[in-house]
């Protein structure tokens, strides 16, 4: 196949074989594993050593694992192979609504959120808000079923440029801004969000509390 090049020395050829065998192997190989491919009388140690030197500064190195050998991505480039890409995506309406309710009604439970929303809140939605760093599990309500209570985080305040939860506009301000219509029943109340440590009806979470393990609801 390689007819054009200059004649290859025996050693050069042996090096190529060791290189190819190591490259193709899913497992690190011992010298004894490689030797049959290279043929009789090859000085395996010196071949490996030569190959190791050739690859020393490259993006891939020949490394020793016990008494076996393998190609591995150069250590200083390992981080490259696990690349992270960020993309900005708008929050879904369901997530936004859930977040808003948690912000105003905290500490609040999933059942309470559902009561305000009028529809079920998927666990995925809460997970997403927690993953976004805006919502956290605060504790468990001291009521039957001990539901998890949710609240917002510092990250939430940061993202929305709020100094504290008390900066969230109240009923009159919402009306004044035209966000709430003025033809609402007098009974409508907007709660004052609570951002203290724990309310008197909340228990702290155990360190290993995984939250509501409840089945996925949507």
């Amino acid at each position: 196949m390689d007819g054009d090049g200059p004649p290859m020395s025996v050693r050069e050829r042996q090096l190529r074989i060791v290189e190819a065998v190591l490259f193709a192997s899913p497992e690190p190989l011992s010298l004894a594993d490689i030797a049959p491919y290279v043929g009789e009388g090859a000085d395996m140690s010196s071949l490996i050593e030569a190959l190791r030197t050739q690859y020393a500064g490259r993006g891939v190195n020949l490394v020793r694992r016990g008494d076996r050998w393998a190609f591995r991505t150069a250590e200083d480039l390992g981080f490259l192979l696990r690349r992270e890409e960020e993309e900005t995506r708008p929050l879904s309406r369901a997530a936004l609504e859930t977040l808003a309710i948690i912000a105003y009604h905290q500490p609040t439970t999933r059942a309470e959120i559902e009561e305000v929303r009028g529809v079920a809140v998927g666990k995925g939605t809460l997970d997403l808000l927690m993953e976004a760093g805006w919502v956290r599990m605060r504790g468990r309500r001291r009521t039957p079923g001990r539901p998890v209570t949710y609240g917002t985080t510092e990250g939430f305040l940061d993202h929305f440029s709020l100094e504290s939860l008390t900066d969230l506009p109240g009923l009159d301000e919402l009306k004044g801004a035209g966000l709430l219509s003025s033809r609402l029943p007098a009974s409508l109340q907007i709660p004052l969000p609570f951002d203290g440590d724990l309310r008197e009806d909340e228990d702290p979470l155990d360190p290993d509390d995984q939250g509501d393990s409840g089945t996925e609801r949507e």
Partner: protein
Amino acid sequence: MSEQQADWLESEPAGAEVLHVDVRGYEGPLDLLLDLARRQKVDLASISILSLAEQYLDFIETAREGRLEVAADYLVMAAWLAYLKSRLMVPQAPSDEEPSGEMLAAMLQFRLKRLEAMRLAAGRLLGRGQLGREIFARGAGEALVVTRKARWEASYYELLKAYSAQRERGSVTEYKPFVRTVWSLQDAREILQRLIGDSAEWIAMDHYLAEYLAIPKDRSTIRASTFASSLELVRQGEIEIRQSETFGPILMRRKQVQQ
């Protein structure tokens, strides 16, 4: 058939062997023809299509004598080759519009060459180093993991809007639409016709409607619809209308027929 397939690349055409009277080893008539052609041991380009056709027909004939079931497509090919043979042997009449025997033979030759070419190509492909057999990818590949981290975005306004909208949706507002009685023009016209009857006297509209106007909230619609209908009745020559002063009573009577 499958066993024959497995080693077809290695197996040379059977040369001078006695023909097996068995078509099961062939993948169709073209395959059989190609095999017969290759037994002529010459380049396909210089093959005698006429003798090929004869061989095929002999083959099929032998098969049938041996009471072997011969598939329909082999018989179709046999019929076509018999036709080809006749065209090759009989000179073409000038008036003949059909393709000449030579043309048909060339076409068959082309198809045989093409099939053989593809077989050779398949063999050469298979003879190349194949991935996982002679040529290898990195054995200990490392998956390139790209974790896509979503950065969620929401504005403060959207947040407040989302909250307000939900609370508004959730708060049950008592609302009963105001239901108005409406006299349709059709109704008003019928009532007016009935009330005026044959009266030749000038009588005020409100007077006719006195009975209905008792309900205050209905007054506007009754007056409006009745007046509108009365104009229509005037236009049709049914009644006459008179008003002697602005805001004065509107008087109506049956239209008088001129004697």
